[in-house]
């Protein structure tokens, strides 16, 4: 099932990627080419096979509940595009 231009626009919106209209046909073709490759996997019989999310199948190690981090706002905000009064700034959020 090939992606249409509108599908690509929907995916790009979900991923918050601003695509140029001019690039859309090329992007659509490329994605269809990749999905064509990926779809070869559908032929594999995976009935009853448990998905494998992590290669080693280990279990999570837990961290003791200790405060180890301290205020480094100045250093961390030195690389931020826009801050004021210690806050990160974004265009107005409307709820």
């Amino acid at each position, binding site marked *: 099932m090939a992606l249409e231009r509108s599908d690509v626009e929907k995916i790009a919106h979900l991923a918050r990627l601003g695509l140029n209209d001019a690039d859309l046909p090329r992007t659509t073709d490329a994605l269809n080419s990749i999905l064509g490759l990926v779809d070869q996997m559908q032929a594999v019989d995976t009935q009853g096979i448990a998905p494998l999310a992590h290669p080693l199948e280990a*279990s999570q190690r837990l961290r003791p509940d200790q405060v180890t981090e301290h205020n480094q706002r100045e250093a961390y905000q030195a690389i931020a595009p826009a801050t004021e009064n210690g806050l990160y700034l974004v265009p107005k959020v409307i709820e």
Partner: protein
Amino acid sequence: MQWEVVIGLEIHTQLATQSKIFSGSATTFGSEPNTQASLVDLGMPGVLPVLNAEAVRMAVMFGLAVGAHIGQRNVFARKNYFYPDLPKGYQISQMDHPVVGKGYLDITLEDGTIKRVGITRAHLEEDAGKSLHEDFNGATGIDLNRAGTPLLEIVSEPDMRSAKEAVAYVKAIHALVRYLGICDGNMAEGSLRCDCNVSVRPKGQAEFGTRCEIKNVNSFRFIERAINHEVQRQIELIEDGGRVVQETRLYDPNKDVTRSMRSKEEANDYRYFPDPDLLPVVIEDAFIEQVRSALPELPPQKVERFQRQYGLSPYDAAVLAASREQADYFEAVAAIGGDAKLAANWVMVELGSLLNKLGIDIDQAPVSAELLGGMLLRIRDNTLSGKLAKMVFEAMAAGEGNADQVIEAKGLKQVTDSGAIETLLDEVLAANTQQVEQYRAADEAKRAKMFGFFVGQAMKASKGKANPGQVNEWLKRKLEG
């Protein structure tokens, strides 16, 4: 048409850990913006989460307290969406394998009946930061101090049938998490937040109506008002021939209305998948048993014990056990004062109305359990009458010292010397000869009414210090001589 209301709740409780769920930042409320936001909380490139053991332990405590199955293999998943208070562009949460499975909680309704509310699940996740909507030249400010605070999201079955039931359930959860010590329950600071799923259906209909979700309602009063308002809105909408649209709504307590949240209306496709930075959390049976054995006494057991141990009525036991702090306070007063029923009365009535008046919780009570218990001793040894005790209580609340100090300073010691009381009564009777004659001439029924007059005069003459029991006894003797 008769409508039935159906309510299910999602309660987000911030767990009372020292550090965040996936980083070593502090979780203290109210710090300067972004001073508690570490590399991990900020979602810096290259950073990785490591799970806080205490958050897991607390989730297990909750699960055991609501009789739930504890997941043995718990998977964290990413919930993907873009929002400025969500630094990584995904929230680490749980989807298919939550720590806490199906359980239940029994709640006591206003009429004293017990209702069982089903708990669908409870899962661990990280809190988001905060968007500050004050205007920064047309911009919104983002504070990520809260980002990564551990949350236990408790999802109920749609078992509640009125706003009052919903509030009773939230109160029961609130009490429970505080009993367990896993959440400070401070709703004003957002430690416990509630999303209400509300729908209506014609009475007798089996299928649920279309529901709306009211987001982030943060006080018991607002929960009741928001739900009632939403119920009204839905009923009116349907009766006017309209249809309820499934949506997320926001309650505005200032205007007492709910309104649609446009920002959440976009079709959500959260693309959940197992977080590849975190491995499955395996919870061993031995760990569960260890947590179980360390569980504190919970409300139902406490109510039962209060009745058994102290001879309290079911109602009094339930009221006193409603919060762990109040129950502990009561038990301390009872232990010092030596009379549980007297202690129950004072805690529920005098202390209760004082706290109500001041609008504070029992852990901030101006009269400590030690002070109150000490005062009860003076009531029991007849130093204080009930009336004097109230005066002493007020003085203690005003910080004037313990009961003995107040009694001493104000000369409030009850007069129990029978000679002094006799003299006093003789004076009262001598000053009211007319009433004495009337009394003696009256029948039994009238006498009973008139008796109070003499008691009042006697107490007044003694400035309230005469022992009322003795006054009664001697008056009767003298009048009926």
